[in-house]
């Protein structure tokens, strides 16, 4: 469990020298930029890792609600700090306030979800809007404080990425280290929680406790990230890298790592672009870069990407069309030569009849026939089509499989529903050999010496039966 995390930590450690060298070339040893880039990269790393768990827990917008919930704490900390003789604008004070009200928000979400009939989304919406409203009320009062303006507090909403100082980077690094440690320690439990809550609780894990830990990490990452990229854009760092990573892998560990990397790279690229060009707010740039990553992942992702899925669907349709055409020709030929033992290679079948067999368009049928002709499976002659001898062999195999299937479904239908995937390439892949032997014995009563079993539902109504499955 620990080993796969090493790349992450070494990456984080390796990032400073590498990025510094890179920046030395690019940005003339600018200390401030270096701090900003390093701090945001660390933030992206931590938010990406934590975000992958909230995404799989189907709580992507948790960060949204919790980051809004920190506002009243920040404002109240500013108001009450002078009472304790502390400067209201010192970062630890504000972060403490944020952590307290974030935790109250988190508890409220859990309470609403577990004690009332309301669902998760309503709980998030309530906490988000009511806490933020409370924050605005407190800010309205804070503005009238004799200590003066609250301009510094606004940075918690919009972020002031360009003015990150080294101290902030340390805060972020500490928060990142804590959440990484918690994730490593509770990796197995979190994984269970994300994928099978019921199983987790039946194994004696407290799902509420684990949810609490997960939310606490979101609060932790959020409060340190708030003034770096701002409230709204902090949400993006928790959601987008994780959602992007999901397109590439189905393994939890890989997804967490990938999400952390995407978060880190988006932050680095976003911060650097913003430093290179004038008037590009870095918080917004970071989000836009990660949105580009998301878009690319959604299109090209190797596991769930749109292109990959479309290609898989296209290939499946080709395969099914091919089977349908070959079997259709065979069965038409068979029905026309009812008295003779078996259709032969050179028997011609009109394509119009083939077209009537199924609800396929003429274009799709002709495209498939053309593809089969190129493979040497069929020959065509003005509107007619016939099987070549390799085509006949293939058609016989497919028809035989199809009829074994039909027989199987007729005789073992109760087994079929639970154990059979009818889209499978061949029955040998999904039925045990014993079952096939049994079916073949069963077929003996239909057999009249041919290689292909007679269709169990008779041949007179070929077009209807073919169309019906």
């Amino acid at each position, binding site marked *: 469990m620990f080993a796969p995390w090493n790349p992450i930590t070494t990456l984080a450690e390796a990032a400073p020298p590498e990025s510094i060298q890179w920046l030395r070339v690019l940005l003339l040893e600018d200390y401030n930029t270096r701090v900003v880039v390093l701090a945001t990269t660390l933030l992206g790393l931590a938010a990406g890792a934590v975000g992958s768990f909230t995404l799989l827990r189907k709580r*992507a*917008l948790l960060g949204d609600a919790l980051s809004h919930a920190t506002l009243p704490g920040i404002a109240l900390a500013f108001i009450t700090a002078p009472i304790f003789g502390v400067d209201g604008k010192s970062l630890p004070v504000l972060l403490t306030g944020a952590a307290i009200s974030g935790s109250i928000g988190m508890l409220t979400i859990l309470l609403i979800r577990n004690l*009332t009939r309301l669902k998760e989304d*309503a709980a998030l919406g*309530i906490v988000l*809007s009511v806490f*933020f409203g409370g924050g605005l009320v407190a800010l309205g009062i804070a503005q009238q404080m004799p200590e003066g303006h609250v301009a510094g507090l606004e940075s918690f909403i919009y972020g002031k990425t360009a003015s990150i100082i080294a101290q902030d980077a340390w805060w972020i690094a500490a928060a990142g280290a804590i959440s990484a440690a918690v994730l490593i320690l509770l990796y197995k439990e979190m994984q269970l929680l994300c994928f099978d809550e019921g199983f987790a609780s039946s194994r004696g894990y407290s799902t509420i406790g684990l949810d609490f830990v997960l939310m606490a990490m979101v609060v932790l990452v959020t409060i340190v990230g708030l003034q770096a990229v701002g409230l709204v854009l902090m949400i993006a760092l928790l959601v987008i890298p994780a959602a992007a990573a999901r397109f590439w892998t189905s393994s939890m560990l890989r997804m967490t790592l990938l999400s952390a990397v995407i978060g880190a790279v988006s932050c680095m690229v976003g911060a650097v672009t913003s430093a290179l060009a004038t008037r590009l707010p870095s918080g917004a740039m970071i989000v836009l870069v990660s949105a580009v990553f998301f878009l690319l992942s*959604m299109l090209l992702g190797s596991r769930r990407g749109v292109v990959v899925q479309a290609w898989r669907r296209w290939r499946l349709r080709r395969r099914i069309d091919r089977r349908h055409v070959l079997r259709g020709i065979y069965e038409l030929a068979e029905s026309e030569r009812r008295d003779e033992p078996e259709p032969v290679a050179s028997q011609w079948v009109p394509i119009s009849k083939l077209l009537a067999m199924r609800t396929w368009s003429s274009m799709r049928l002709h495209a498939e026939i053309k593809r089969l002709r190129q493979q040497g499976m069929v020959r065509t002659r003005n509107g007619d089509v016939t099987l070549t001898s390799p085509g006949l062999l293939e058609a016989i195999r497919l028809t035989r499989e199809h009829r074994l299937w039909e027989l199987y479904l007729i005789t073992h239908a109760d087994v079929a529903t639970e154990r059979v995937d009818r889209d499978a390439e061949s029955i040998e892949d999904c039925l045990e050999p014993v079952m096939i032997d049994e079916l073949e014995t069963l077929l003996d009563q239909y057999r009249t010496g041919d290689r292909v079993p007679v269709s169990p539902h008779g041949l007179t109504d070929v077009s209807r039966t073919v169309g019906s499955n």
Partner: protein
Amino acid sequence: MDATSTWMWQLDGWIIAAGVLCAVASSLVGNFLVLRRMSMLGDAVSHAVLPGLAAAFLITGSRQSMPMFFGAAIVGVLTAMLSQWIRNFGKVDEGASMGVVFTTLFALGLVMIVRAADSVDLDPGCVLYGAIEFTPLDTIRLGNLDVPRVVITLGVVTIINLLFVLLLYKELKLTSFDPALADTMGLRSAWVHYALMTLVAIMAVASFESVGNILVVAMMVVPAAAASMLTNRLPWLIVASAVIGALSAVLGQLTAITLPQSFGYGSTSTSGMMALAAGTLFMLVAIFSPHHGVLVAFLRHQRLSLSILGEDVLAYVFRQEEKGNQKEITSDWMRRRLIASSPAISIVLAWQRLTGNLTRAGDQYGLTDQGRITAASLVRSHRLWEQYLVDQAGVTSDRIHGMAERLEHFTDRPFRDELERQTAFPSSDPHGSPIPAEQSSPPPTNSGTRQP
């Protein structure tokens, strides 16, 4: 400072009117968002309209309302469609797709605004904060009355939303509760969905810079959530949410003026206070609602567990008396054997003595005649169940006790008679204990019966 001295009907009346209209209009739409588990959509759309506003401004070069309204409305609908699209094609779950879309659009809007910072007087803050306090300043003369522009806008939106809910009531109801059925009936749930999204977007835009979007976000979710704690009927839900929304708008404005004064400050953010008021109302309803309230559910649960414990106590005393084991019929033994807390045992024992089921001598308890009848029925149910589980359900005898322990509390006379018939009138249970004779009179009594 006297609270009434700052109250001016001319100003505060219009602010309240704007707040109430916003609340009613939002909660009309919000009910269906909460029912469809899309409560976060209001938040997403209200953030995402930023690039629409910025684009309208950059194209027209002015801060006129109309172009901005359309720009934002288009982007708002686009947000809903994009997240739907990402959800369908990318198989990303609802929340995540919304999160991706609205943060990206917000970032885009920020970049657009900052890039054009020289010429733009567009503060992203006004999207989130709004300034309902300035409502009375910008007025339009209507007849012989100066009506604030905001009130007119929100009034129109309220009417649109009301018409939408009234005219499409059946469609909204069906598509919210059973979209698959709606589709099979030819209702086009997708169209209803997008119509709803459009209204959410219009709602968010109409309240941009007028009352602040946080108010819309709050009013779309909180009153609807509170109303759903009160009723199960959709018409009442809609009415209740509108009332709660309006009430929180009024309370919000009142407290925004008066509350800070008690700490020596001037008035604070009204829309924030309205959201806070709605939250407070929600909390009260969630706790004290007569049907689904947390408190009621808790009390109901406590009462049930205490009355079950009471029956367990009677059955325990019956069994000990049956065994002649008098010395274990003390509250201490019961607490240990029945695994209960001592306050619970004390309450239950006091109650059973009060209702005349138990008597006490020293620290030992005994059954009265009336208590023995109840206890015998319970033990009879228990043992008949054990016999039935072994005989008819094929459960092994080491597992039957726990199951019978649960079932005995929900078994009445006719049920016992049926059990007895099905187990062929046994005289003892699988453990060898005798099954007590039926004590209750033939017309079935309700003793020991409870609706599960």
